[in-house]
């Protein structure tokens, strides 16, 4: 693994680099450190969510409810903040994470105990979560003047020149890097996606592992919900509408196999950054939004074609070894 995946990551990294150089040739200011920091900060929510989604996709599931989970948690903590302006921010963050994790747990239980296909479960909960936002907010917005200064200020507070939002993403990447490489849970996640039948005989509980993946994805969506609402200082029913597809796209571009079992933290992060760069750069150099969509779409197709190609190569090796069992 240490040998295989860097190839894919190196390709993606060079693609991002080439893209940035191309942009810099038209607009040199883009690669100024301060602008790159802005782009990173802008991409931070996508990075965090892509990591959660990666865990889910690795276990052969998918979580389409992340953006709705984010919006519902965001609305809930915004309303809590309006009702109790003095509640300290760490408490708000804990509430956001627990709320998100609880919603993820609902997805997980439905997949684990009722064996409903994950795409159906999360399509359903996605709609339900959006509906609940409408019910609790009665369709009204929570605006910046209603929120406390501490609430909206936290993600923008700067530590060592970077906003807390960026630091959160960096911290998440580190935690996930360790979790995936160095904990039994991380190993089980790869095993469940790689070969669920074999995982059962190894003593791994496949359903429970998938459940935990959904809880992790939900917790990150909850955390991002607070950061998102606080950063943009507004909460309403439709925030982050359609964002779940961008999150899945980041994973796919980052080489996370939709069939499960193959992928890396580095890939998911680079996939998110690639989309972030495209999204931030094209408007700057006056390229129409049409190209933005076209480039994102092409990136997804190229990434999938690339994965399919490597998957096919692997198939051939298996066949060959079956041909010569008597060697």
């Amino acid at each position: 693994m240490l040998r295989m995946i860097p190839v894919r990551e190196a390709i993606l990294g060079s693609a991002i680099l080439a893209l940035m150089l191309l942009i810099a040739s038209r607009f040199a200011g883009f690669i100024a450190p301060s602008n790159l920091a802005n782009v990173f900060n802008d991409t931070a929510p996508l990075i965090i969510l892509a990591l959660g989604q990666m865990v889910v996709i690795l276990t052969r599931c998918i979580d389409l409810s992340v953006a709705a989970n984010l919006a519902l948690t965001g609305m809930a903590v915004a309303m809590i903040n309006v009702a109790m302006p003095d509640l300290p921010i760490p408490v708000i963050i804990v509430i956001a994470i627990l709320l998100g994790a609880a919603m993820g747990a609902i997805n997980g239980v439905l997949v684990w105990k009722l064996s409903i296909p994950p795409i159906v479960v999360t399509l359903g909960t996605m709609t339900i979560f959006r509906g609940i936002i409408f019910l609790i907010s009665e369709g009204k917005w929570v605006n910046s003047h209603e929120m406390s200064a501490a609430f909206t200020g936290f993600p923008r507070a700067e530590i060592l020149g970077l906003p807390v939002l960026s630091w959160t993403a960096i911290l998440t990447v580190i935690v996930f890097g360790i979790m995936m490489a160095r904990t039994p849970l991380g190993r089980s996640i790869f095993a469940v996606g790689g070969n669920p039948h074999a995982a059962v005989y190894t003593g791994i509980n496949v359903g429970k592992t998938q459940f935990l993946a959904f809880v992790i994805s939900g917790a990150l969506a909850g955390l991002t919900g607070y950061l998102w609402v606080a950063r943009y200082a507004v909460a309403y029913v439709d925030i982050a509408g359609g964002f779940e597809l961008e999150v899945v796209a980041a994973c796919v571009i980052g080489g996370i196999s939709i069939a499960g079992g193959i992928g890396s933290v580095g890939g998911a992060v680079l996939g998110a950054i690639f989309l972030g760069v495209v999204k931030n750069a094209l408007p700057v150099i006056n390229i129409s939004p049409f190209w933005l969509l076209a480039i994102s779409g092409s990136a997804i197709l190229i990434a999938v074609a690339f994965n399919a190609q490597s998957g096919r190569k692997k198939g051939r090796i298996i066949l060959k070894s079956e041909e010569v069992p008597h060697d």
Partner: protein
Amino acid sequence: MTAHQHTPIVSMDMITKTFPGVKALDQVKLDLYPGQVTALVGENGAGKSTTVKILTGIYTPNGGTIRIDCEAVAFSSPNVASEAGITAIQQETVLFDELSVGENIFIGHAPRTPFGLIDTTKMHSTAKALLDGIGAPFSSHTPLRDLGIANKHLVAIARALSVDARVVIMDEPTAALSHKEIEELYELVDSLKAQGKAILFISHKFDEIFRIVDRYTVFRDGAFVGDGLIADIDENALVKMMVGRAVDQIFPDRSSATGEDVLQVVGYSHPTEFADIGFTLKRGEILGFYGLVGAGRSEFMQALFGITKPSKGVCKINGKIKIIRSPADAVANGIVYVPEDRGKQGAIIGLPIFQNISLPSLGRTSHNGFLRLAEEFKLAREYAERLDLRAASLDQDVGNLSGGNQQKVVIAKWLATQPQVIILDEPTKGIDIGSKAAVHEFMAELAALGLSVIMVSSEIPEVIGMSDRVIVMRDGLIVAELSDKELTPENLVRHAAGISAAKQLIEA
């Protein structure tokens, strides 16, 4: 018997089929006569399935002739065989749940209207005639998903007959049927006979062979042993023809010095799959589990390993009662299971070798919830060396290894858990003789190291050659425990097929 019944419709003569490294059929002959049922009898691996595949045009033989009505023909494709009127009702026929019975019968060859559309009226009327002919109690408009297994089987039969078959091959048709359904199938076979069709009937069950068959042909290890009229032979003679063999396989020498009791199972039962399974396994012992396919052996092993839950029963390990609720419990208690389908249930492609080996042992290689890669490597290296695993590096993806080396990774994975009991389900199924010998050698080594081995196997020489004791299961029950002198091929087959001593007297 009229004169034409003495001329076979289909006659296979000196048919040979080889696969790389294996001779599946060696100059076999098989004749199928009109209006008669011929049983093809043989152990697993005798070449029955290969014969069916040659008759239906899926395999092309390497030598020999197939004659239809005394004319030599070449079955180059399944289409040629079906045009010749040969049709097979497979063990697991592929049918479509969401289509109606009529559509299932005629899928691929439905009658057309002049405009090229499917003529549904004609399709359903023909289907109705076929269904009535075999006494099916449902309409051709019924959606297939509403039918039970037995009725689905009737649909499969109707589909086979819809191509105007002269030769019908039934490959273990009663395996999934209840007693009443089996009786109905017998009536159907009788009516097909009356219509003058030649029937090839493949079965392991002696009672049904003697009940409905007119002729028999016996294969052993891909070679023809004998044939004749069923009226001229009794069960014992047929069993002897089936299993009597020259000892051509050499099994490793084992000193059967076994130690204390390691595993005791008492009264394991399941609502539908098995009942009252009890036995004792000693240290260093190889205990064989023999039975026909579907006798409940794998189902019991899965319950013992915690994949399914038994309704009753106690399992003692080293004299202490242990409750095994999940595979993780089983592994923690020193029981491991190497399943039959190792390709699907063995190695995890995508993970490197060392991570595959350490996967069930992560508890030992981690500290405070974090994995120690150095210890994982140490563990993996130790077992890779013991098993002589050939790989460029333990960091390599398992998917890049050859089949044999992947198998070693799977075995290393289990040995690394330091088990006391290792369950091997059909350990040599589908592998060639050279690799079989290596697996047998390895099993003997495991037992010599003090592991207790449970070997589920359907291959008689392997069961006899490797086991200290053999438990025979039939229909979910233990019917015999054989060792030493009682452990003969005849005894195994008799107990597994349910031929009682009393019945032998009557037949004789």
